[in-house]
């Protein structure tokens, strides 16, 4: 019998064993198939930066018509829900009790100062939630500038002198935050499968001593490696299809790039992520340490440092370097581009080359880790 068919026979046997082990434990299937689905729904519906109907207290210390017209713009905004309040003290009480997210105060001398110059309006926001605070600031100032523009137009004082910005946001015209969060979901789910499902595989065999028994069989390290990869690759592929279907049909996120490229890149990242899990597992030989490291080395960075929500342009250079070392960062950039912008070949080639290099490196290291050696 030739060596080639021996390889084939042993590999099939090992894959069958790994698959049985995978199927036998319900928790694996729960993480492999149910958790991704739950995450997709949580992400799609739960995560949003888009503030709607934020309650804002309005304190009118000046009740002149010009002041009234100016704040009237607030009611027109779909993002704000203004509440008229008698005094500043009352408004501050509401804000402390978290009943309102901001206070707009029109001072006594507003009409006078507006007639002679710019006019001041005070806005108080709660900085403890800086994201909401900035968003509300943007909406309030937008609403007030719009209404003051209308007033100027009505007064017939000539069209607005000044610079107008005509902004066009490419790839996400409506500025919907879901569009940039949902593609990142694919990255997180692929990371999750790799980190959580495979990181205990080798450590468990070391702890139970079954890996040493494998060493006395004709099985080769590369066969162990492939057999531990194959069943999880199938699970990951199912998750990928689920993610893509939900993104497209449930959340209406466009897929503007080539679907074939998305699938190939995802499989590539899935392999990298599975191998990283196996490497952690083989390097620690201890299930407790392996699980902690998998959480800390793969999942947390993928969520916090890959550009998933926090734009890497804003972080210091050291953090950028660390982020560039993570495979998740490259896949994240690629996925967002492929979903929203289209197939931009320079990014596709660069990211896929980096992922392939990681795959080769990790496969080499993991294979060495599995070399038949006792210590």
């Amino acid at each position, binding site marked *: 019998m030739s060596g080639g068919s021996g390889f084939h026979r042993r590999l099939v046997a090992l894959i069958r064993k790994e698959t049985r082990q995978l199927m036998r434990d319900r928790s694996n299937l729960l993480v492999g198939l149910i958790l991704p689905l739950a995450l997709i729904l*949580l992400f799609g519906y739960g*995560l949003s930066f888009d503030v709607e109907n934020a309650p804002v207290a309005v304190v009118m210390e000046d009740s002149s018509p010009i002041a009234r017209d100016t704040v009237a713009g607030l009611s027109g905004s779909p993002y704000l829900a203004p509440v008229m309040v008698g005094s500043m003290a009352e408004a501050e009480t509401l804000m402390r009790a978290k009943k309102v997210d901001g206070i707009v105060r029109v001072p006594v001398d507003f009409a006078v100062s507006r007639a002679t110059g710019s006019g001041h309006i005070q806005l108080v926001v709660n900085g*403890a939630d800086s994201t909401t605070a*900035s968003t509300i600031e943007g909406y309030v100032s937008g609403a007030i500038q719009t209404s003051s523009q209308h007033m100027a137009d009505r007064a017939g004082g000539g069209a*607005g002198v000044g*610079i107008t910005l*005509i902004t066009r946001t490419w790839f*996400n015209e409506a500025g919907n935050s879901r569009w940039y969060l949902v593609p990142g979901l694919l990255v997180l789910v692929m990371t999750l499968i790799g980190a959580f499902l495979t990181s205990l595989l080798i450590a468990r065999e070391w702890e139970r001593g079954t890996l040493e028994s494998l060493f006395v069989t004709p099985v080769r390290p590369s066969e162990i490696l492939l057999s531990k990869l194959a069943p999880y690759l199938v699970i990951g592929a199912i998750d990928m299809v689920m993610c893509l279907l939900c993104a497209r049909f449930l959340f209406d996120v466009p897929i503007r790039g080539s679907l074939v490229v998305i699938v190939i890149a995802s499989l590539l990242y899935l392999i990298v992520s599975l191998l990283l899990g196996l490497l952690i597992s083989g390097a620690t030989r201890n299930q407790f340490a392996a699980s902690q490291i998998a959480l*800390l080395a793969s999942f947390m960075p993928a969520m916090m440092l890959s550009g998933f929500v926090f734009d890497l342009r804003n*972080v210091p250079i050291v953090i950028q370097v660390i982020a560039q070392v993570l495979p998740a960062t490259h896949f994240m950039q690629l996925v967002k581009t492929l979903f929203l912008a289209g197939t931009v070949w320079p990014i596709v080639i660069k990211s896929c080359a980096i992922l392939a290099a990681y795959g080769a490196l990790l496969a080499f290291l993991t294979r060495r880790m599995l070399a038949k050696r006792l210590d």
Partner: protein
Amino acid sequence: MSDLITSVGSVLALIRKEILALVKDPANRVVLFAPALMQALLFGYGATYDLTHVPYAVVDQSRSAASTAFLARLDGTGVFRREATLASNAEIAGLIDSGEVLLALSIPADFERRLTDGEEAPIQVILDGRNSSTAGAAAGQIGTIAADYAVSRGASPPITIERRAWYNPNLESRWTLMPALIAALSLMQTLLLAALSVAREREQGTFDQLLVTPLTPMQILIGKAVPSILVGLIQSTIILLVIRFWFQIPMNGSYWLLYLGLVSFTGAGVGLGLSISALSVTMQQAMLYTFISIMPLTLLSGLLTPVHNMPEVLQVVTFINPLRFGIDFVRRVYLEGAGFADIWFDFVPLLAMMAVTLPLAAWLFRNRLS
């Protein structure tokens, strides 16, 4: 009385054994305490929504004193950096697609004339919407700069909005995020620690031996819970020190109240972890069940996106999430200096969770022998 002393003594012995088992392995010592420090530093710098670097391209068809002055104001912010000066609008697409620039400005030929004549002068801004938050923030800043410049050219001044942000005067996103990490980072590891503590003994067969000792399930439970709570509190303290002294974010509240909250929060987390532990037969299962819980706990906690932006149904679901209340009280005590009267409500769900999960775990210990 002597019974009580014996029982306290045996619980203490168990706690001592658990702590020793935890820290005798050098790998464990590193894995339990180094990550808290590293993550606090990494995420402190990395997790920010504040714009610091916006590369842009410009198509300046006006080539006038006005457009030069406007661009100089933009460059003067230190945030906007001109990466390319393009000859035509057709070149914009390539630079934005490849991500080299976040935005492109197109200034029309009649920009200066319109400004001088007191007409409206449009500037086109094309933004990369792949990260809609960054794009929106950059557009907002350009708008402010443009308005300022227009006023300096004699436009009628717009209404000034004086912003005052309570508790975080410069609205730095780091101030919002970092205190939340005191709760979020420690929860993940303590949950995993608690979940693995019983599962490991189950897998190695030593848990059955523990059950036949004179210790009651409640005593075993306390012996398992206390070390995990201690680890959680130490991790929180490490993160707290980084925030207070490295990032120098001012602490406005009482440390006593903060720790009172952290103990209930970590207790609720450990209760959850031990229940998971009691439900799992192997370490693999314990770990996977923990991860299944960690993900929704994190996403629905208000760590990344505010809870009140979520749909009503999910907001209700967050009431069984200890992290939601942990983050809320840490932020409010740390940043807002809230007193007990302001945040007592956060303790209700946390204590309720402890009251449910800890006895549940004790009951499961006894009634789930594989």
